[in-house]
Every structure is written in structure tokens, then in C-alpha cells.
């Protein structure tokens, strides 16, 4: 028996990935936030392969993620398609359902979010809906695993009855007759005679779908076929087809869906404040500030605890092994070098916890909406801001999320400015330096750096769009789902998923880099710290940074930070030969900056803005497919960081 495959499809933010996780037992990332899934994911349900496709509103491919979904259904021909619908918003979700019925594929309709439906006292007649859609309909609340076992049974049952039923939804006579005429023309040609999707192709021809026309042009006689069928296509067909679908949906809603009038909506109530014209942006900034306060303050006792353990461990090793090369490797290399990064784990996990909470609650999509109003005034695409917010966690998924932007130029701008957004890897550097220089004001300083990242990002987008990548303004469509109180399970899972990535990176790339750094610092053996390979290398590069007053050690940190930003701290710890961790490392670093808060801040600005890490650069290359843009992002990052750090010193020098 050949392997069976099912595909999950649906509008963005209807809970496809939650259903996918429930069916397959996976832990793929989910959020109350449209556009989380930008590429297809696969998992296993018993022996059945389950594919989770990116969210899409229609099968008319415009953005890359929509195209992934459409191409998969048409070209990979899964045995069964599961259309996940947001049951609280059936009217809009059914449009995609009707489009699926135009393709030669078996469909199961899953009405998800039934828990919210019950809360809102909405009534849905599933039996009637099944009759209208001519396909099985089942209800679930996947977030609570409700209805999942019934869905599994239904999937297996539908896969057994392998033959396709003739259950298409029909349009009015005039449109149906022209669909038939186009089908008749196409069947005259060999290439189309065995095509199972002739009806779909004919409808797409009426809609003047560019991708379908391109495909026809590619085959011999393509131009002739187009000449024949174009006579049958009318200018208003696209509108006629859409209105035919919508009138069918209206009929379904009228007969199957009852929503109580004047129902008090929590989301509507909260949005009065969060989406307010004047309050929206200040509230977003307050939430951002609260996030950093929380991250900083709550992490402090945990950091002290890790620090205490490291200190005791260092003493224990020295007592056991005495002063030797091995003890130097263990204490200076691993405990102080590598440990100086591990100490920031609480901060990173706590920031991910808050980000997951904001994402799952539905607030982050509101933040993007609020910022869109402001960005649109500047001539920027609001979707870019969604990508920027994701960059707070890690720039790599944020760069990938730009796939959902339709315009190629807008997508490039978003990728380019993403490196200006402060990812979690830079946080340890800020915390260490800000903590020692600005003490109780450290939270505010870190907040200012994050804000600066956003401001610089937006400004650079504006410059790139005005002078380098001029593009037409396109509309920003973002669905604002209801607020949901995040479940502890999913919030913790999300925090762990992201934190695990940090741990993996720490265990591989960072550990290896720290060992190399230690080697370069210790050798040649017996030399003083100022004669080591590392110092000699830093001394060679340092003159470039002389105008910024960065010393040799800061320069070494910057260079190794190119591999992973966290390594900047390890470089400081190793070079300064500080045996205890944070308490003495911070002040020693501050002395490296000539005890000048202005130089310290300009160093932080440089760390914020300079070239992203190697992994992020790899993603930029993968997403743009261009060496030119990848090199540009390196040079642009370095140039911008140098300029801004210089500016900080220039302005700071006047006032402080």
C-alpha cells in the first residue's frame, strides 16, 4: 500500500498548527498571530503523513507562502485535504473552502475554536453545513484536544473510501456553461486530456490567473490555446465568480449559523484601548518597557544563584587540580568564558516567556496593526513590522517571516532592516555593560537600545524604499483574531522551544568559539596576556576603531561576535582574565571603556547595529538568493553601526 498523505489548509491564525500538533504529537511553533507557518511542515499520524501548509485566504497565488500551499495541493495531490476553519468567523473562512471544492480533491471541513463559539453563544448546524458543502464537517477545540480523536477516526475513514465523489459546488448556468466550453477546448490537447483539475484550470482562466496562463504558454501550441480561450473570458468574470461564491456563503450562513445580537465582546472592549488612535502606540511602548523590567528584575535572583554555583565550582577545581593548563582551561575557558553566557539564561528564558505570552494572547498582531498606521504614513509596509517584532526573539525566523510579503521589493527591505532589530543574543552584552555602568537605570538603557533598533530599522527602510528599492504601496491585510488567555502548556512550550535553540547554539557554535578564544589567549605558552595570539590579532585590527575609542579587547569581542553575538562577553571574560564572573567582570569592562558611559553606550549601539551573526547571514542568502544583497547587508551593517556609534560619541561628548 502506498504511503498516504493528508494536508492541513486554512486561513491564517485558525489554529492549523495546533491541529497539526494534536494529530502528530509534534511541538511545532504556534501563535495567536497570522503568518507563523511560512513553509510546509510534515509529521506522522500513525502511518499517515500530515503536512501543515502556510495560512492562505485564497488559492490565487500572490505571496510566497500562499503559493507554497496552492502548489502543494495541486502538484503533490494529497489523498485528503483538511480545511481548518475558524468557527467564530465562518463567513470569511468558507471562501477558501469553496475554492477547495473546485479542485479534484477530497476535503474534510474542521470547525475549530468551538470553545470560543460556545462562549459567544453562537449556534452552528453541522448537519446542514455538511449538506451545503457536500463534504464531512467536524467540530474541534484543538487547543484543549477536544474533538481530535473523532477527527483522527474520520480521517482514517475518509482515506479508506479512496474514490472521489462528484460533490462539486456549482455556479450559475452562464458561468458553468463557459467553464464547460473552456474545458472542451483544453481537452482537445493531449497535455490536458488526463488532467484531473480541468475544472479548476478553467475557473482560473476565467479569473485570469497569471500563473495558469504562464503554464499554458510553456506547452507547445500554448499561444494558440490562449487565443481560443481568451474569447470566452469576460472582463468582469473574476468579480462574477467571487460574488457567486459569496452569495452561496451568505445562503449557508443564513441557514446554518446563528450569532446572538449585542453580545459583549472582551476583544472589542480591550481593543478600544489597545487600538486607539492616540493610546495605541504609547500602550505598546509601555508593554515593551514592562517586558524588559520583568526580564531584568525577575532574572536577578536566578543569575545570582548561577553565579554562586560557578564561583564554588571554580574554587573546587583549583583546589583539586591546582594551577595547571587543565585547570586554566576548565576555570578560565569553560567556567568563566562559557559560563559568562550561561549566566544570562534566566534573562533569555524570561524574555521568551513574555514574548510567547504576548504572541499567544493576540496582542502582538494588535501591535503590528497599531504600528502599521504609523508606518503607512511613512510609506512603509505594515507587514514589515510583524517581522521586526519577531526579530526580538531571533533574526532568523523573522527574516523568514518576510516571505508573506507580496511585493518583492518590500520583502527585501524587510529582510535588510531586520538585522537592526535587537535579537536575544545581544541581550547578555547589554545586561552586563548596562548593569555595571547604569546600575538601577539598566532596564531603561536596554529599553532605549531596543527602541533605537526599531527607529533605525524604520528609518533605514524609509531610505532604502525611497532611493534603492522604490516600490508601489501595497495594502496590509492583517486579521485580528480574538484575544485568548494563553494556556500555561503552550506558553511554556514556546518559551522552551526558543530557549532550546539558544542552548543548542551555546552547546555547539558558542562552546567551540570559546575554546578557540581560550587557545588563542593562552598561547604561546608562558607569554603575558598582551603577547598572546588573540591580543596580537586584536591589536592589528584596533586602529580601524580608534576614532570610536574602542580598545583591543572590545575589538576582539566585535570580531568574534560575528560568529555569535553572545561570544562578545566570553571574549571580554577571557581577555581580562577575570577569575570571578559578573561582579568583577563588569567593572573591568567599564574600565576598558575609559570609565566613560558615552563610550560604553556607543559600544552597545555598535553591537546592536553591526552585521548579524553568520547563521542570520546564511538565512539572508537563502531568502534573497543573492550574493550581492548578502554582501550589502554585511557592509551596510558595519557602516551603519560605525556611523551611529560615532554619532553617539559626538553628541554624548557635548553633553556628558
Amino acid at each position, binding site marked *: 500500500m502506498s504511503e498516504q498523505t493528508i494536508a492541513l489548509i486554512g486561513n491564517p491564525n485558525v489554529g492549523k498548527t495546533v491541529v497539526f500538533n494534536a494529530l502528530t504529537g509534534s511541538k511545532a511553533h504556534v501563535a495567536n498571530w497570522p503568518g507563523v507557518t511560512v513553509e510546509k511542515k510534515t509529521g506522522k499520524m500513525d502511518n499517515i503523513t500530515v503536512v501543515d501548509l502556510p495560512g492562505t485566504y485564497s488559492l490565487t497565488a500572490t505571496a510566497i507562502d500562499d503559493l507554497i500551499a496552492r502548489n502543494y495541493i495541486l502538484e503533490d495531490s494529497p489523498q485528503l485535504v483538511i480545511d481548518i476553519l475558524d468557527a467564530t468567523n465562518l463567513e470569511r473562512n468558507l471562501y477558501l473552502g469553496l475554492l477547495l471544492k473546485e479542485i479534484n480533491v477530497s476535503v474534510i471541513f474542521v470547525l475549530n475554536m468551538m470553545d470560543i463559539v460556545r462562549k459567544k453563544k453562537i449556534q452552528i448546524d453541522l448537519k446542514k453545513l455538511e449538506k451545503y458543502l457536500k463534504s464531512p464537517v467536524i467540530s474541534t477545540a484543538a487547543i484543549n484536544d477536544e474533538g481530535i480523536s473523532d477527527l483522527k477516526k474520520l480521517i482514517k475513514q475518509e482515506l479508506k473510501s479512496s474514490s472521489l465523489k462528484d460533490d462539486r459546488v456549482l455556479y450559475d448556468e452562464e458561468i458553468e456553461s463557459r467553464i464547460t466550453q473552456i474545458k472542451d477546448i483544453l481537452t482537445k490537447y493531449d497535455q490536458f486530456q488526463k488532467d484531473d483539475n480541468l475544472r479548476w484550470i478553467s475557473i482560473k482562466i476565467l479569473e485570469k490567473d497569471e500563473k495558469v496562463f504562464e503554464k499554458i504558454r510553456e506547452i507547445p501550441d500554448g499561444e494558440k490555446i490562449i487565443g481560443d480561450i481568451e474569447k470566452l473570458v469576460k472582463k468582469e468574470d473574476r468579480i462574477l465568480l467571487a460574488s457567486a461564491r459569496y452569495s452561496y456563503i451568505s445562503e449557508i450562513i443564513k441557514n446554518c449559523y446563528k450569532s446572538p445580537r449585542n453580545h459583549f465582546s472582551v476583544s472589542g472592549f480591550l481593543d478600544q484601548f489597545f487600538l486607539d488612535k492616540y493610546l495605541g502606540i504609547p500602550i505598546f511602548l*509601555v508593554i515593551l518597557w514592562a517586558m524588559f523590567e520583568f526580564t531584568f528584575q525577575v532574572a536577578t535572583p536566578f543569575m545570582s544563584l548561577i553565579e554562586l554555583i560557578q564561583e564554588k565550582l571554580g574554587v573546587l577545581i583549583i583546589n583539586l587540580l591546582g594551577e595547571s593548563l587543565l585547570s586554566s582551561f576548565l576555570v578560565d575557558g569553560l567556567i568563566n568564558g562559557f559560563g559568562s553566557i550561561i549566566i544570562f539564561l534566566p534573562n533569555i528564558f524570561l524574555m521568551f516567556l513574555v514574548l510567547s505570552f504576548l504572541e499567544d494572547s493576540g496582542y502582538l498582531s494588535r501591535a503590528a496593526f497599531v504600528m502599521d498606521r504609523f508606518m503607512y504614513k511613512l510609506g512603509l509596509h505594515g507587514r514589515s513590522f510583524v517581522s521586526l517584532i519577531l526579530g526580538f526573539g531571533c533574526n532568523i525566523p523573522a527574516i523568514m517571516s518576510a516571505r508573506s510579503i507580496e511585493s518583492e521589493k518590500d520583502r527585501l527591505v524587510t529582510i535588510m532592516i531586520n538585522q537592526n532589530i535587537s535579537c536575544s543574543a545581544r541581550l547578555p552584552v547589554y545586561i552586563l555593560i548596562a548593569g555595571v555602568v547604569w546600575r538601577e537605570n539598566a532596564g*531603561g538603557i536596554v529599553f532605549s537600545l531596543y527602541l533605537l533598533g526599531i527607529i533605525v530599522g524604520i528609518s533605514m527602510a524609509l531610505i532604502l524604499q525611497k532611493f534603492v528599492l522604490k516600490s508601489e504601496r501595497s495594502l496590509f491585510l492583517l486579521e485580528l483574531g480574538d484575544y485568548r488567555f494563553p494556556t500555561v502548556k503552550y506558553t511554556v512550550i514556546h518559551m522552551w522551544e526558543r530557549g532550546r535553540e539558544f542552548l543548542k547554539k551555546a552547546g555547539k557554535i558558542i562552546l567551540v568559539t570559546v575554546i578557540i578564544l581560550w587557545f588563542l589567549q593562552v598561547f604561546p605558552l608562558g607569554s603575558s596576556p598582551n603577547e598572546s595570539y588573540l591580543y596580537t590579532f586584536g591589536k592589528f585590527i584596533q586602529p580601524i576603531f580608534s576614532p570610536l575609542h574602542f580598545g583591543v579587547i572590545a575589538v576582539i569581542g566585535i570580531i568574534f561576535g560575528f560568529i555569535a553575538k553572545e561570544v562578545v562577553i566570553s571574549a571580554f571574560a577571557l581577555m581580562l582574565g577575570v577569575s570571578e564572573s559578573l561582579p568583577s567582570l563588569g567593572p573591568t569592562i567599564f574600565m576598558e571603556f575609559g570609565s566613560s558611559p558615552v563610550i560604553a553606550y556607543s559600544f552597545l549601539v555598535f553591537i546592536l547595529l553591526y552585521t548579524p551573526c553568520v547563521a542570520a547571514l546564511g538565512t539572508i542568502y537563502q531568502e534573497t538568493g543573492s550574493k550581492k544583497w548578502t554582501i550589502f547587508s554585511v557592509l551596510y551593517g558595519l557602516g551603519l553601526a560605525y556611523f551611529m556609534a560615532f554619532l553617539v560619541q559626538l553628541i554624548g561628548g557635548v553633553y556628558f
Partner: protein
Amino acid sequence: MKENYPQIMKLIAVLNLFFICLIIALEVLSLWIKIPFLSGETLDPIGLSEITGSWPDFLIRLFIMVLSLIIYISALTNLKLNPSKAYSFIIGGGFLLLGIGGLSILIYGCQILDLLIQMNFEGWNWYSGFHLEMMLFFINLPVLRIWKKKYIIFEKV
């Protein structure tokens, strides 16, 4: 019990208003110390700077408090004319202050925990601006219970 909700909400609004005004007054007073050219000196005998924190903290706190002030004044003026709107404001403002107060309690608790781990109590300021915000958390706790009964309240008025 539910018949008492309007009175409880009114009491919550009045108490909130009192504490918000107190915090704003302290914030404004601390400006005198924060900006040396206004006072001509940087002395801070009663430790106001400690209470109001750094500049970003000060500005954000002031924004939240002024926003809350507007919310509660609007709530109290609407209480007779448009009770539904007034209750929305009291509950919405309540959640905001629960968040701010909760964050303060968490931060204060973590600072004490940190001191315990380090066993270092020297220079610890037992009194801080957090206390006033902590009060806001306790005052607004009944909002959670009222919120559970929101349908009764909003459908009644």
C-alpha cells in the same frame, strides 16, 4: 451580592483615584530633585529619587498614572449617565493597575530573593515607590471577581 457591585466598583474607582493622585504628586515633587536647575541643588533629604526611579521609569510611570487618572475620572463622571461605559472603564483600568501592581510585587519579591541568595542586606532600601503600586494591585483585586460576572453586570445595565 451582585446588587452591591455598583457600590464596590464606585469604591474601587475612588480608592484608585486617591492613590493615583498620590503617586502623581510624588512624581511631580521628584521633578524638583531630578532637574537640578529647578531646585538649584541636588539634595534629596527624603529620598524621593529612590521612590520614582530613573528617567525612563519616571516617564512611563507618569504616563500610566495620567492614563489611569483619565480613565477613572471618566468612569466617575459617567457613573450616572452611562453606567455601562463607566463599568467598562473601571474594569479596564482595574486590569491595567493589576498588571502594574502585580509587576511591582514581582520585582520587589525578586529583589528580596536576590538579597537572600547573596546574603547582603547592606544598603537595601526597604521602602520604595513599589509600595504605592503594590497597593493598587490589592485595591483592584475585586475586579477579577466582578469580571467573572461580567455578563450579569453588562446585560443588566
